[in-house]
C-alpha cells in the first residue's frame, strides 16, 4: 500500500510538470512570433582619448534658435575621428529623450572626411534624412547646427558638403539645399542671426 501523502506529492509534481510544459510551449511560440531586433547602426570604434571641452551648437525648435553648449567629450587625437565624435555627441543630444530638436530614430553619422584644403564632407545615413521633419527652418537648424559645431571646434574648414548614404541629395527634407558645398563663413553669419 502506497502511502497517501506520497500519491499526493507525485500528483502535485505531475501537475507542475504539465503546467510548465504549457508555459514553455507558450513562450516558445511567442519567441518565434517576435522578430529579432536588429540594430543596423554601425558600431563605432572604441574611443580612446582624454575628455575635452567642446562647443556644440544645439538647435532649439521652440524658439528657432541655435545656442552654443559646452560639453566634455572624449576626443581622439586624429582629426577626422575628432570630427566624427563631436558630431556624434551633437547627434546624441538630438536623439535623446526630451531633445530640443528631435531627429529621426536611427539617424547616424557614417563618416566625416576632412579633405585639404579646408573641405569637410559629412556623410549621414538614410534614416537621418528620410525621417527628418520637413520645413525651411527645421532643416536649416539641423544643417547649421552640424556645420557650425564642426567649424567651431576644428578651425580651418572653409567648405562643407553633406552627403546621405555616400550620395548627393537635392534637399534634406524638401527645403534645405544639399546639392552644393556650404561656405562656412556664410553659415556662421546665419548662426549669428539664429542666436
Amino acid at each position, binding site marked *: 500500500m502506497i502511502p497517501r501523502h506520497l500519491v499526493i506529492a507525485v500528483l502535485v509534481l505531475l501537475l507542475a510538470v504539465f503546467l510548465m510544459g504549457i508555459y514553455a510551449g507558450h513562450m516558445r511560440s511567442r519567441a518565434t512570433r517576435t522578430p529579432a531586433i536588429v540594430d543596423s547602426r554601425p558600431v563605432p570604434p572604441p574611443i580612446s582619448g582624454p575628455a575635452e571641452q567642446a562647443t556644440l551648437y544645439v538647435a532649439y525648435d521652440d524658439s*528657432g534658435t541655435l545656442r552654443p553648449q559646452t560639453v566634455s567629450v572624449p576626443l581622439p587625437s586624429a582629426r577626422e575621428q575628432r570630427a566624427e565624435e563631436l558630431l556624434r555627441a551633437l547627434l546624441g543630444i538630438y536623439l535623446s529623450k526630451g531633445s530640443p530638436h528631435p531627429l529621426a530614430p536611427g539617424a547616424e553619422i557614417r563618416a566625416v572626411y576632412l579633405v585639404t584644403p579646408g573641405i569637410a564632407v559629412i556623410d549621414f545615413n538614410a534614416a537621418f534624412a528620410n525621417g527628418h521633419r520637413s*520645413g525651411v527652418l527645421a532643416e536649416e537648424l539641423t544643417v547649421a547646427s552640424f556645420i557650425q559645431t564642426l567649424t567651431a571646434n576644428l578651425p580651418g574648414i572653409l567648405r562643407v558638403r553633406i552627403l546621405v548614404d555616400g550620395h548627393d541629395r537635392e534637399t534634406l527634407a*524638401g527645403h534645405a539645399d544639399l546639392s552644393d558645398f556650404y561656405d562656412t563663413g556664410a553659415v556662421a553669419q546665419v548662426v549669428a542671426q539664429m542666436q
Partner: protein
Amino acid sequence: MRWNRDGPHLAVVLLLLLAASFPAGTAEKRIAIYAPATSYSLPVVDRNGRDYVGLLELLEPIGNVSSRSDGLHWRLRYSDAEAEFTNGQNLAKVRGRKVDLSGDFLLESNRGIVPVSSLGTLLPRIMGGAVTFNETSRRLFIGGVATHFTAQVSRTNPPRLVMNFTAPVNPTIATEPGKLRMSFSREPIVAPGSPTLTFDDKAIPSATYSEFNGAAEFVINGTAPLMASFSNEGRTITVAAAPQQSSASPAPAAAPAVPPPAAPLAPGAPAAVTTVVTPRHFYAVLDASHGGDDRGVALLPQLAEKDVTLVLARRLRQELEYRGISTLVLRDSDAYINLDERAILTNTAHPVIYISIHAASDGRGVRLYTSLLPAGEENNGPFIAWDTAQTRFLASSQAAAQGVAVELLKKQIQVRTLAAPLRPLNNVTAAAIAVEMAPPDPDVMDLNLAGYQQNVAAAVADGIVAVRERLGASQ
C-alpha cells in the same frame, strides 16, 4: 351680348398683363463647387436678405457625411470631423473649436443651412484642406483644383484666336452679333491676369472674362460673326470668323475662306502662333512651392504644404495686381515643377522680384528668407554661375525682405528675417525672397484661415510696393 363678344379679347389682355407682372427669365441663384473628383452646383436660398446653402448637400458629393438633428441642435459628421450647429446661432463648433458663421445657422425641416459668406471660414475647418471661395461669384474651389488657359492670336488669314486649357472643357457657347459667349459652369476655370484682354487684331479686337452666379464667362468680341471649334480632346478652342454666306456665290465657293474647324495648330509652326495676346512684362513672379507628388510639409494629416502655398500665392497675386503690380504665378495648379525649372521659368520672365511661398506648422507668424549662397564659382563678366546667380541681386533681395517685414509688423504679424539654403533662390537673377507662413497661434489649422492668409498677402504686397522704387532702380 356685347360682353359676350368682347370677353375672349379681354381675357387675353388680362393674361398678358399677368404674365408681364412676373420678371421674365430671373436666373436662380447658384453656387458652384469644384472638387478634384467632381464639379456641381447647388441652389442658393434667400433668408432675411442673406444667401444660404444646405451644408449637407454641399458636402455629400465630396465625402462621407452624415447629420442628425436634436431639437435646436444639428450635428454634422464629415470624415473624422464633427461639427455642431444651433438654430438661430451664429457660432458653430467644429473639431472642438468655435467658428463664427457671420450669420445665423438655420435649421429647416431637419436640414441645416449656413450663410454662403461663412463657407470660406467653415469648410477649411470641416474638411481640413485648402479651400478657396470667391464669394462675389459664388465659386468654391476645393483642394487646389483649377483649370487655366492661355489665349493666343494666330496671324493666319482669317486670324484665329486659339485658347488652350490645362484640362478638357465643354462650355456653353452662344453667339450674337459681334460677340461669342462661352459660359463655363462645370469647369474650375480661373481668371487670367487681367479681366480684359486686348488683341492687336481687327477681326478679334478684345475679349473679357467675368464670373458670376457660380459660372465663369469669356466673351470674345469680333467685327464679324464668330464660330468656335474644339480640338485636342477638348483642351483647345479655336475661334475664327464664321463662313460668309454670300448671296452672289453658292455656299461651296465660300468654304475655302474658312479654316477647317478642328484643325489644330502645328506645334512649333513658325507662322501659326505668332502673337501672345497680352505680351506682358511681369514685375513679380510668385512660386507656390512643392506640388504634385511633392506635398511638402504634412502640416496636418489632411493638410499639405503644397495646398496652402497655392492658395496663398493666389491671394498674393490678387493683392499685388490690385496694387497695379503685374504678377505671374509659376505653379497655379497641383503640378510638379522641379527647382531648376522654377528658376529657368523665373529668369526667362525677367521679373523684378521672385517670391517663393512656403508654409510650416512650427513657430508663429511669417519667416522671410533670402539666399544663403553656397561656396560656388564667382560670376565673371557676362557669364553667371548657376549656383551663385543670385549674388548680384542679394542686396535687392534683402531690401525687399526688410520692406515686407516692416509691413508684416504693422499688421501685428510676428516676423523673422533669415538667410536660408533654399533653392531656387540661389539661381534667380532678380531680387528673390521666400515667405514661410506659420500659423498665427498654436492651432495649425488656422493656417487655412482666409482672414489670416489675406492679412499676410496684403502685408507682403504692401512691402513690395514700399520698396518698388528701390527694386526697380537696382535692376
